[in-house]
């Protein structure tokens, strides 16, 4: 077990900075998810940690040991790929034992480790089956078990659910979650799927164009995205963004937006606030069918449909801005025309003209 520390890590392909001078520590015994759209550099970073990709500049440490110039074999890592790796003609337990045999481990030790790995992945009942004959999800579990049995310092996962059929993904997720809770293993897990990252990660490194936009615990990342990009990328659908009106006044400015009700006063100058936006998640907008003191802004219902868990997603508009609201089934059923809407202050996130969060 070891933490992973990357220092000034750089990977350049031609003119593209695929991994752009990163400095981070991935905690010992924790799961760090590298999350981002395709082309953000997450897989390149993982491959550099694995020693499968040369580095342009920088250093990588496992614990106190620098491993920058070590080969993949010398790094003591386990890897699970998009395609499950199982060896044809071998049973599940033979598959798991294979690397241990190659390392000339003692027979009893091998048996013990294989049993432990089978139990951690809850696949004892298929130990004698030919691994090649198994379903995609079971083959992927066998791949994980083999890496676990080797007891490496670090296990790297590269989108392991990509080729698991949709109905079985849950089986893998459950197994993975149980495994990480019991094992306390340092894991780096690459995915473009926010649900996987939110479910598995102790921390998420949200990546965009070779940079880590934010490195945080999942809920923190979801609730307080430091950039507009994070607000947009996480959530289904992502955050709504509004361009408020900013008026300078003595000692600061007034920020107004129809959905706010009363304006926000701030000490920041109108100059500083130029091009700012206010973000709010669809589930955090409050709605009412009738007008009340709290709900004075009437908005049109443009569309509504059912989303995850029977919730309703309402589409509405103020000025030129289309926005979406996620409401409970009961509220959603009731709203069938114009309604009243409010953006509660406590859920608003302010972003500057570059899309970076600031405190009002």
């Amino acid at each position, binding site marked *: 077990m070891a933490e992973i520390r990357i220092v000034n890590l750089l990977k350049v392909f031609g003119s593209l900075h695929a991994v752009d001078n990163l400095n981070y520590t991935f905690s010992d015994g924790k799961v760090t998810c590298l999350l981002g759209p395709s082309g953000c550099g997450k897989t390149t970073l993982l491959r550099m940690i694995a020693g499968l990709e040369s580095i342009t500049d920088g250093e990588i440490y496992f614990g106190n040991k620098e491993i920058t110039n070590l080969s993949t074999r010398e790094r003591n890592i386990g890897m699970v790929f998009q395609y499950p790796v199982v060896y044809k003609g071998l049973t599940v337990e033979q598959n798991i034992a294979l690397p241990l045999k190659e390392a000339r481990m003692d027979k009893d030790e091998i048996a013990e480790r294989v049993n432990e790995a089978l139990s951690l992945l809850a696949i004892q009942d298929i130990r004698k089956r030919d691994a090649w004959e198994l379903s995609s999800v079971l083959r992927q579990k066998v791949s994980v078990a083999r890496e676990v049995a080797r007891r490496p310092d670090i296990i790297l996962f590269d989108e392991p659910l990509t080729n698991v059929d949709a109905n079985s993904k849950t089986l893998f997720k459950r197994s993975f*979650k149980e495994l990480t809770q019991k094992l306390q293993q340092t894991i780096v897990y690459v995915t473009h799927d*926010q649900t996987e990252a939110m479910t598995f990660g102790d921390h998420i490194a949200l990546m965009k164009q070779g940079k880590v936009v934010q490195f945080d615990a999942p809920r923190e990342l979801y609730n307080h995205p430091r950039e507009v990009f994070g607000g947009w990328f996480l959530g289904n659908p992502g955050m709504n963004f509004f361009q408020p009106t900013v008026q300078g006044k003595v000692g600061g400015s007034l920020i107004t937006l129809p959905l706010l009700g009363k304006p926000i006063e701030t000490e920041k100058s109108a100059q500083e606030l130029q091009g700012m936006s206010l973000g709010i998640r669809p589930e955090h907008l409050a709605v009412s069918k009738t007008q009340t003191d709290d709900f004075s802004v009437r908005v049109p219902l443009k569309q509504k449909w*059912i989303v995850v868990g*029977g919730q309703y*997603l309402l589409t509405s508009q103020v000025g030129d801005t289309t926005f979406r609201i996620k409401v409970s089934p009961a509220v959603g059923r009731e709203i069938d025309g114009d309604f009243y809407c409010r953006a509660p202050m406590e859920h608003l996130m302010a972003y500057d003209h570059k899309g970076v969060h600031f405190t009002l």
Partner: protein
Amino acid sequence: MAAIIELKNLMKTYRGKQPLLQNLNLTVEDKDFKVVFGLPGCGKSVLMRMIMGLERPDAGEVFLRGREVSNVNPGEHNIGYVPQSFALFPHQTVYQNIAYPLTIQKRPKDEIDAEVHRVAKMLSIEELLVKKPEQTSGGQKQRIAIARGIIKHTDLYIFDDPFVGLDFKLREQLVYDLRDLREKLDTTFVYTTSDSSEALQLSKTISLLHAGYIMETNDPFTLYDTPQCADSMRILGFPNANMLEGKIERGTLVTDAFTVEGIGKPDGQVLVGIRPEHFTLEKAGEQPFTFAATVSLREDLGGEEIVYFDVGGLTLTMMSWHAEGSYEPALGEKISVSIEKKKLICFDAATGLRL
């Protein structure tokens, strides 16, 4: 409203296989956004190809705009089509790719030019027109294929699962785009998918294709809230509905997960459908009953969670909302789950029909 498509008693069996379509009947009204929804491999693409005239049914009739079309050349079906696996011509520009359906009709150059720009603008891909397909991203390619599918002026467009394999954020945007597009064009869209969310978000009406025929047709809200068939409930909705086998004896429903008295349905073998959002961790309102379970996984979607729990050898799912102070059980924790009796939807186990 008039019907633009009418399919009557369509049959199709591929040699050596189970029948794919059996007595399939489907009517699509003019200006509908019709989603044909079904599991992968249920025959959606074949059905679309039959409407296009690219595939013949073994028996049955296809009517387009009131006319039986079995002897009509597919080119004269006059349908805009975005197939599931669209191939863009790699050596042609995006412009040429989009113009293709008009080029083969030998339409005048300036007309083609105006049309290409019209659809490119609609899909916000004008700046791509001079590029080659390889210089565009996955989502852009999809939009190019859609532009090519809608360039023809007609009253009917077919989209055969066009977003399959695209990443989540892109699909989100394309779903909004497509709904807007139908409204702008004010024509009929037929769209196939095996994704519940897409079906619920896009459709004016959903027809559920299962076991070779259209099992149920309705607007998405009615179909979601009051499915008439067990299979409809099973496959439409995300997360999937919980479906439990059970037995009613003297008014008491017994399943592997729980027993509930006074169910008010006739005795017999049943399937009980429960939407994940109808289970609660707190006591529910009217006539709730409660049972004990163990949390096995919590899947975090951001604004909400899917909680998987084990009970009586089954794994069931419920929704949990992230709110200030809400109860968030740990994995392995014992919980009490409640549900109102009226939220249990019972189907006859033999026929699959709602009781």
